[in-house]
C-alpha cells in the first residue's frame, strides 16, 4: 500500500479551483481515490450530479485524467463501454499498457436512477471500479430525498412538517445489493478514514473484475453543519456505527473498524441540521427507532462477518 508520503508526491487527478462547496466530502473523497489510483493511467466516467457540475464547467476542468460525462443514470454503462473499447483497441495493438477505469456517481445516480445500469455493468464483469459518493440525498438539485437518505432525515422532498417528521423510510442497503452480484471486490468507506479509503481503492483496482466502493460523503449544505466539520462528521458516522467500514471479497466480510465503545447514534445526528427536528420534545421515539435500526444493522453485519470466516 502506498504511504502518505508517496501519495503526497503523486500527481493529483482532481485539482483545486473547482467550485465545490467549502468542506465538500465528495470532492475530498474523489481526490483521495485518484491519488490512490495514480500509479497507473486512469480514465474516469461520471454521472450528472454535484461532482460533475462543480468540476467541469466549460471551458474549465479540474480533472487531470480523462473524464467522460454522459448522463445522470449511466456512468456505469458508459464506463463499461470505455473498458470494452480498451479491450478491443488493445487487441488491435492501438493501445498499450494497463488503464484503471473508475466510474463515479452520487447516490441519486447510483442507488436510484442508475441502479440498473450499475447492476448490468457488474454482472457483465467489466474490469472497472464504481465509486458511489453517497451524500444521502439529491444534493445537486437542492437536497431532495433519495433511497440513500436515512430514516428521519429532513430533505426538501421529505421535509419535517407539522405532521410528518422527515423521511419515513429506511435507507436502502446498496452495498449489500452489489455484493449479491458477486463482484471482484466491494467495500464501504468514508474520507475521514482516508488511509482505509486509499487501501480499498488499491484493492478494488487490483481485483480481477468489477469492484464497488460506497463512500459516505458528508455534504455541508445538505446535512447542515459548519464546513470545517466534514472529516469529524465522517469519522463520527463510523464511531456511532451509522456507516460501518467493511469490505467484501470472495464471500468474506471483513469489518475494518470496530469501535471499542460505539457512541450512541445521536452523537452523529445532533451535529446536523437535517436531524434537528428529531431532538424536539415529543420526538424521542424517532431517535430510539433510529438507534434500533443502526444497532440491528450492525449486529447483522457482525453475524455476516462471523459466518463468512
Amino acid at each position, binding site marked *: 500500500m502506498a504511504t502518505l508520503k508517496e501519495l503526497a508526491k503523486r500527481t493529483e487527478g482532481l485539482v483545486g479551483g473547482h467550485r465545490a462547496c467549502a468542506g465538500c466530502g465528495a470532492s475530498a473523497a474523489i481526490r483521495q481515490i485518484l491519488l490512490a489510483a495514480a500509479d497507473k493511467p486512469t480514465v474516469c466516467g461520471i454521472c450528472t450530479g454535484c461532482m460533475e457540475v462543480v468540476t467541469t464547467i466549460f471551458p474549465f476542468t479540474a480533472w487531470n485524467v480523462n473524464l467522460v460525462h454522459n448522463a445522470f443514470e449511466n456512468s456505469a454503462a458508459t464506463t463499461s463501454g470505455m473498458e*470494452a473499447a*480498451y479491450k478491443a483497441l488493445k487487441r*488491435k495493438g492501438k493501445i498499450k499498457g494497463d488503464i484503471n477505469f473508475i466510474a463515479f456517481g452520487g447516490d441519486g445516480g447510483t442507488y436510484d436512477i442508475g441502479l440498473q445500469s450499475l447492476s*448490468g455493468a457488474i454482472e457483465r464483469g467489466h474490469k472497472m471500479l464504481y465509486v458511489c459518493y453517497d451524500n444521502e440525498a439529491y444534493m445537486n438539485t437542492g437536497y431532495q430525498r433519495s433511497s440513500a437518505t436515512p430514516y428521519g432525515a429532513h430533505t426538501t422532498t421529505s421535509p419535517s412538517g407539522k405532521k410528518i417528521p422527515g423521511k419515513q423510510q429506511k435507507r436502502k442497503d446498496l452495498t449489500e445489493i452489489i455484493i449479491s452480484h458477486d463482484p471482484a471486490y466491494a467495500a464501504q468507506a468514508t474520507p475521514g478514514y482516508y488511509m482505509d479509503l486509499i487501501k480499498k481503492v488499491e484493492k478494488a483496482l487490483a481485483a480481477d473484475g468489477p469492484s464497488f466502493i460506497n463512500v459516505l460523503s458528508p455534504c455541508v449544505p445538505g446535512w447542515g453543519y459548519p464546513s470545517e466539520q466534514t472529516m469529524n462528521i465522517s469519522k463520527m458516522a463510523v464511531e456511532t456505527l451509522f456507516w460501518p467500514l467493511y469490505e467484501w471479497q470472495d464471500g468474506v466480510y471483513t469489518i475494518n473498524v470496530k469501535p471499542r465503545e460505539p457512541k450512541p447514534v445521536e452523537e452523529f445526528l445532533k451535529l446536523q441540521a437535517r436531524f434537528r427536528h428529531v431532538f424536539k420534545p415529543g420526538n424521542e421515539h424517532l431517535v430510539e427507532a433510529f438507534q434500533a435500526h443502526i444497532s440491528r444493522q450492525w449486529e447483522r453485519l457482525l453475524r455476516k462477518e462471523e459466518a463468512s470466516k
Partner: protein
Amino acid sequence: MKILAKTGNEAMAYAMKQINPDVVAAYPITPATEVVQIFSNYVADGEVDTEFVAVESEHSALSACCGASAAGARVMTSTASQGLALMHEILYIAAGNHLPIVIALVNRSLSAPINIHCDHSDTMGSREAGWMQLYCANSQEAYDSIPIALKIAEACGVPAIVSTDAFIISHCMDRLEVLEDDEVQKFIGEYNPKYFALDLENPKTYGPLDLQDYFFEHKRSQIDAFSKVLSTYNKVAKEYEKLSGRYYPAVEEYKTDGADVAIFTAGSTADTAKEVVDELREQGRKVGLVRMRMWRPLPVEEIKAALGKFKAVAVMDRSDTMADFGGPVFLETRGILYDLDKKPIITDYVYGLGGRNVEIADIVRVYDEISEIAKTGKVKKLVTYLGVRGEE
C-alpha cells in the same frame, strides 16, 4: 461478386460483420433481435474482433456505445421502436458529443397500443436528435447503406441511423449482392479520431457542463457538422457506386419525366409504388414516384428539384405528428416547397400504421385521387388516413 439469399436483418448483420467494429453494445428487440443475435454468433465464432457488450437495456446499449466511441472505438448497435425510444435521451448526447455511432434499425410502431409491426413513428419521433437518417426500400439497400452511413458518420462527426421496414424487409428473404470483406474495409478505411478518451498523453474532459456562455456556439457547431452531411453523402454514395455498381441518391426519382403527379414516400412502400407506376404508365397515365431515402439532414434542394415540377404531390406518411395536420414528411415537405414560385398542390396520406398492409389498390387509389386534384385544382381532403375502418 457474391450473391446470397438474406433477409433485411441478415443483410444488416452481414454488413456489420464486414465492417468488424471495435465495439457493439446492443439489446435485442423485435423485429431487430436477429441483428444482435446473428452478430453475437459472428463474435462467438471468431469471425469478428469486436468486443460485444450484451447490455441490460437499450438505454445502456447507447450509453455504452457513447463510452466506447468517446474512448476512440468504431462503434455500432441495433434497435427498433421502444428500444429507440428508451435510447432517446442518449441519442442527443451521442450527437451533441459528435460520436459517430451507427444504428442498424428496424422501423416498428411505438406503444400504445403495443404492436410489433412496421411504421416509421420511432425514427420520425427522433428526427430532432441530430442523427443522419437513411430509410431503405429493400435488403440490398440496407446492406449497402451500413458502410455508406458509417463512412459519412465518421467523416462528419455525426451519428447515423439506417432503417428498414419491420418484417416487410427485416424478415423477407431477398437476393443480396455482397462485397468482399477487404473491399468493405478499404471503403470505410481505418478510424482514427482526433480526440479520444483513451489518449493518455492528452487528458481531456468529455461532455462537460456547458452553460449560457458557450452552449449556443457548441450547438451551432453541431448544426454546422450536420450541414456537411449531405454533400459528404453525395460524394460517398458515388464512391460506393464505383465499388458496387449501385447508386442511391438522397432523393430518388422514378419515372418522373413528363409526370403531372407523384407520390412522395419512403421505405418498402416506395418499391411497391414503383410497380404501380409501371402499370399506370403502361396505361398512358402521367404518374411518377419520388422516394425519400434521407430524412435527416433534409435534402432540401433535391426535394425542391424533384417535387417542384409536378401539378400535385401525394405524400405517403407512415407515421403521424399528432398535430392534427398529417404526418411529418407532409409537414416538412410543405415547408420545403413554400419558397417555390410555382408550387404543386400537396396532400397527405397517412398509411400503414402498426403494420397495416398497403396494397397495390391503395396506391392506385392515391394516384387516382391526386390525378383528379391535378385536373380540378380542388382538394377535398388534405389529410387522408388510408384504409382505416370508418374513415370514408
